[in-house]
């Protein structure tokens, strides 16, 4: 497509042309020419995994989709350290057991991602303390970031209540984990109240 057709498009958008500049929105596909060679998965292209910048418990900066999800098999959940009804510690403890069951697959082809719902309060240092208190092994990232980015992430991943009142109350947060295999676009969910054996068994068939 040559510039003339594009100008035609630009005119079609009802925008005036400035001095040699055509205002346009660009899709990430075009920019992805700079990013790693492989294309993003279909699920990512549909916008379910915004590529927001986050920080893990070791202080490392990561991009959510590119570094944490792309081509990987992951289990993801949102949590708070100050959980009032105790659901979060139970969930984390369950996942800790699952981590043991998965043995050396953790960190190699299966990764856990836990994102805080209180980024203002839970800094990487605090997340590290929390992770250490459960003695988590490698392959499990605890993430925080800018409040706007965390908000974008949780909305895109479906972790919200349509009622804004209920959504504001952090104690209503969703205790399900999303598990998935990005390479095959397989995304499901499992309750973190399930037994560790149930959660671990998911990874037996997710990648075959």
């Amino acid at each position, binding site marked *: *497509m040559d*510039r003339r057709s*594009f100008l035609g*498009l630009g005119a*079609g*958008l009802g*925008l005036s042309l400035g001095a*040699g*500049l*055509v*205002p*346009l*929105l*660009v*899709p*990430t596909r*075009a*920019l992805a020419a*700079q990013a790693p060679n492989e294309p*993003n998965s*279909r*699920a990512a*292209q*549909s*916008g*379910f995994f*915004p*590529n*927001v*910048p986050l920080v893990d418990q070791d202080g490392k900066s990561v991009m959510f*989709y590119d570094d944490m999800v792309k081509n990987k098999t992951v289990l993801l959940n949102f949590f708070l350290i100050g959980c009032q009804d105790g*659901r979060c510690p139970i969930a984390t403890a369950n996942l800790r057991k699952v981590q043991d069951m998965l043995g050396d697959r953790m960190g190699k082809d299966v990764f856990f991602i836990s994102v805080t719902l209180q980024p203002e309060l839970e800094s990487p240092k605090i997340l590290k303390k929390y992770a250490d208190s459960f003695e988590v092994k490698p392959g499990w990232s605890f993430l925080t970031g*800018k409040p706007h980015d965390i*908000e974008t992430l*949780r*909305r*895109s*991943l*479906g*972790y*919200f209540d*349509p009622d804004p009142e209920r959504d504001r109350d952090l104690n*209503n*947060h*969703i205790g*399900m984990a999303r598990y998935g295999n990005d390479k*095959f*676009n397989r995304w*499901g*969910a499992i*309750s973190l*109240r*399930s*037994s560790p054996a*149930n959660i671990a*068994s*998911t990874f*037996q*068939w997710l990648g*075959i």
Partner: protein
Amino acid sequence: MSQYEKLIQKTMDVQREITEAKLSRRDLLKMGMLSAGTGMLLPISGLSLRSAYAKSGNKSVSSSTVSSSLSSVSGGGCPVPGVDLISPPTRPWIEELPRLVEKQTVAGNDPANVTYGPGGGAPGPKPIGGLNTLTGQWEGDCKHRLCTEFPAMEAQMPYHDLEHQAWGKGDIDPVLGNFAPQKYYEQHVRQFNHVWHPDLPAGTAGQAAWGFDSVVPGPMFRTRYGEPHFNRIHNHLPAQNLGFGINQMSTHMHNLHSPSESDGNPLFTNYSGQYYDHHYPNVYAGVKQYSGSSSVQPNIKPYIGRTDIGNPDEALGTLWYHDHKLDFTSQNVYAGLAGMNSIYDAWDAYKNTGPWKSNPDAMGDLGDETRGWGLPCGKNYEFDVGLVFHDRQFDPSGRDFFPLTCFDGAIGDKYTVNGKIQPYMPVKRRKYRFRFLAMGPSRTYNWFLSNGAPFVMISNDGNLFPAPVIAKNFEQTTAERFDVILDFSQYKAGTEIILINRAEQTNGRGPTNNLLTPGFQVLKFVVTSDDFGVDESRIPAKLRPLPDMDQPISNSRTWKFERGGGEWLVNGQPFNRDVVSAEIPEGTAERWSIYNGGGSWLHPVHIHYEEHRYLTYNGTTPEPLARGRKDVIRLDPNAKVDLYMRFRDYKGLYPMHCHNVVHEDHAMMVMWKIA
């Protein structure tokens, strides 16, 4: 559409153009579309950089496509069809309604012609092994991974390795164990190209879909009580999906009285490269009681013809089959894995099933419009038509869209019937029987005819009423079936009548209960002057009597369907793959109270294996269409129902779950067991 929405739509068109043209960054730079300073594309007027799909220097902007950028505008993972996501335009009434393919037996109905596959054998009452794709080994003694993945549940089944209960077990159970197949079928589940509408960008080449026998919807089976059948389902699905779905299946025949191992339990997986054998004895509920081998005294009505295959007043009719794989049911059904099965009465189920002209009291839904109730049928079922309703969403480039991260439910802005968007159907000037199926994933319909003509309703969820019910309109939620007779003889050739959905629904949670005017036009009937011989069908004054509810209730249970902590729960718990939530002695009757925990959610609750009757619906008698037997409960917000249900004949595990399949996948399910 607001200015903003128009802008978004145009932008998506441009996006498609750019990606199709495969422009590189250098191209864009050359065209002067990038700012010299940041190297980023200049934002469109009226939208801030925040909404732009670019990584900025300070890395605080979300990238990816429109949906995530709209996450702050709408429902994030739950885009609203027609607002956040708009399918490409398609002209209505361009394609003719396809009839469902009529499923045929294997060649000569000879079991030798059922494909064995590696390691497998002839169809038989013992389970067949399959390739364990994890180890690459053939497993002869464990039919599927239930044995290793869910050992606690496998132990709950009556026979090890899920052997067929109703076949070759005559020495163990002479009443239930001797229903060897009389018909042999085989299906191949594959990915193929399907044309939802030629106006979509994919055009007449179509786009990838998954289907039983490579068609969407899958074929229509015509089966009969008293004629047990066998179906071997081969899974050839690929590892790479359609952007959603998984190549692992468990096929459920909704809502046949099938032994648990053939029922399509979410835990019993059929992996790609394997097949799964289903055996359907095709018996009415009450086999043990009617054969005299139950402690419950039978009340055999004088019009009953035979007593060895259960009570014909418990007959089902319009069934459907669909994938039921744990956690992926909604995605797999959306990929196209659903079809229908019409089951007819045994020829001798009732004493009087003869020609109705000479004997108006003749009974039976026989697949022959000259006999029994004489319901419209015709040769080769020409006038007994399945209509599969499914709403679908496409992104502006025409790709199938499924809201992978939405917990609410999934609806779409395109209405399909039998796999085609807004088709037309030429009809002859006589009576037709239409079997309406709401395939989902989550929509509730309220059907009207454009000329105000009424529907003659004859069945609900496949169960014929005691007498036809005339309705100006009727509501239908996911998984419900309604059989309707329409008589086109009263219209001149050339008359057009449109089937319209007037239920307003803006998200997957449930309808708003507002009636839209004019509503959505879904299917157009065009009356023709084509010859059809003679219409020998009738609309009888009476249909199937209701079975009694004489058996005393031995137990009452309560099930609350609600949202808690963002999960979909039953009695406060998400589905637990290790737990049997109710153990019910075979042959007993129970009262189940089912509540909707509130909120704006509609839950179509479905219990496998047996039909239920309402004792009360919200404290009063149910509406006329729901006074008979059903298998899908329309649980409106804050609704409460009490139902009577019996648990008869075969043993094993069965689920109860919400049939808004997105809720089901986010764990609104329990497993119960007949012991």
